[in-house]
């Protein structure tokens, strides 16, 4: 087996705030083969967005800093690259889609100009050629009248159209890796499904690897091969998507899956995970999930749990599995 497209190893991103050091990402590791897809799930503040931003070195610095770890992408360690090389990679080999399509587009330029911008930046293309490429790309993301859309300003388009345009902008240079941070959260449910369909189709057509960051397990189930579940800056479970949904092993993953509302459930109360995510400045010792965990034992309160493999490509960090 050849080297994966992306291999993250023991990534630690700390935020140096006046009130103390926040270990936002604390020893995260995963890998992603070319053309594959990975989902990162977790509650707000679990470090999933920080992880994603680190992959392109877009973390707000200061206060954030990558304190250790390697991010091997296509033979280069992104954690150690210079700014000039990073700029070459950004938007070309690695692209990003943000949460809110309403504000990801600059209101004073037409959609076509903004998509063309990335082409002109990374490919030696003329203005006209770049615009033509942008129009092609808009057609590829399923916009009915791409030439007209290219001439439109963002405020003239609907939310779904804008997110399609944002996706076109991200994919216009054929990136090897696309990072999507909550790409459908700001959209209507019907549009969400269309956008997910579109991303799945484009992933197939363009052989782009995708990392999807979300708190929505439904979105994950639809689109990715492997899921990484994060809690309080750590990976608690990593598993192929079907295995994760069929037999979640970590108590936190089990809780997350139970909290997905279901129509045919007998009970009327929605299930939740008791308690709240611990304060980033005062992490509990031992397993970070133990204050909310029904299976917590003495050892969970004292020592960090071991990572236990399941023999089928997955692993979970929990004393109950040891």
């Amino acid at each position, binding site marked *: 087996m050849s080297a994966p497209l992306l291999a993250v190893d023991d990534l630690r991103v700390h935020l140096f705030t006046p009130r103390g050091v926040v270990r936002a990402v604390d020893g995260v590791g995963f890998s992603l083969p070319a053309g594959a897809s990975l989902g990162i799930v977790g509650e707000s503040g679990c470090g999933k967005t920080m992880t994603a931003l680190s992959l392109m070195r877009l973390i707000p610095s200061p206060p954030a800093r990558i304190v250790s770890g390697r991010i091997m992408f296509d033979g280069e360690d992104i954690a150690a690259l210079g700014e000039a090389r990073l700029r*070459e990679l*950004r938007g070309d080999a690695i692209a*990003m889609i943000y949460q809110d399509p309403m*504000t*990801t587009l*600059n*209101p*004073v330029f037409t959609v076509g100009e903004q998509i063309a911008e990335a082409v002109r930046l990374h490919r030696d293309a003329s203005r006209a050629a770049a615009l033509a490429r942008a129009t092609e790309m808009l057609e590829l993301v399923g916009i009915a009248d791409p030439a007209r859309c290219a001439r439109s*300003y963002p*405020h003239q388009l609907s939310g779904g159209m804008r997110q399609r345009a944002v996706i076109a902008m991200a994919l216009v240079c054929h990136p090897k890796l696309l990072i999507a941070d909550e790409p459908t959260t700001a959209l209507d449910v019907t549009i969400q499904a269309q956008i997910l369909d579109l991303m799945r189709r484009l992933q197939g057509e363009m052989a782009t690897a995708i990392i999807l960051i979300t708190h929505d397990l439904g979105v994950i189930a639809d689109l990715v091969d492997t899921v990484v579940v994060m809690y309080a800056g750590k990976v608690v479970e990593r598993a192929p998507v079907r295995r994760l949904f069929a037999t979640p092993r970590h108590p936190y993953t089990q809780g997350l899956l139970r909290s997905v509302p279901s129509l045919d459930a007998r009970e009327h109360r929605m299930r939740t995970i008791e308690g709240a995510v611990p304060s980033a400045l005062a992490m509990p010792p031992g397993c970070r999930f133990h204050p909310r965990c029904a299976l917590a034992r003495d050892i969970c309160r004292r020592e960090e749990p071991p990572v236990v493999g399941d023999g089928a490509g997955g692993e979970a960090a929990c004393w109950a599995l040891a």
Partner: protein
Amino acid sequence: MSDLAERLSGDARRGAVASYVAGNTLATIGVVLVAVLVVLALAGPWLVPHDPLEQNFLGASQGPSAEYWFGSDSFGRDVFSRVLLGTQASLAIGVSAPVLAAVFGIWAGMLAGYFGGWTDRLLSRFADLLMSFPSLLLGVMIAAALGPGFRTAIVAIAIALFPRFARLARSATQVVRREPFIDASIASGRGPFAIMARHVLPNIAGPLIVALSLWIATAIRLEAALSFLGLGTQPPAPSWGNMIREGMGDLVGDPWPAAFAGAAITVAVLAFNMVGDALRDLLDPELET
């Protein structure tokens, strides 16, 4: 922000500006006055009925007449011709100084607002330092240091206005900096300076254009003040400020040169303020100054 975009974008924008100006009396008057001032400044040398430097001691200190529309000054020079030619000095300095201040101030403000941290602290403290002097005092100090003259007046006024542009650009940039399209642009591989020029500047242009037109009025006042103090346009070349200064000698016996020069300053300042107000209504409804 999107409101501004709607106002600036699409084919409708030229029509919208025209209909707004036509529907607003003050805006119309302001635009017409500014246009007249610009024409007078450009064509002044060909329009003057008399040589503004020509002295006539027999006809000195006269009131307005058919020969001398605005009267004559103590050297017997035609006040109308001098006021007319003074437009040139006032507008040349009044426009070029704020533009110069805008070029440097906007970039300084964008750098401070975009990078934050030490860049911001350094640039902001420098701007605060300049702001801590009243503009006129600062202008006088700089003019005194550089020696009086046309260029000095421009530099002095530009330095006095620089921190105002820097502050305005900085705060506007801080708002735009948080917009996701800036992050998206970084993520697509743009460098910071390209982002500032392409994504920040067009989004903060509205309030800055408004400020520019209002500060042109300020600059015209400052130019008159500096010339009045003998630090701007040098006699015998006419400017509104030095005409008032010369007229001060005999304000009771022959008030006409000072009165008409003063009126010219008032009209010019009023005209640019009216245009500025109209631009503010048009471009930046939220800004309250």
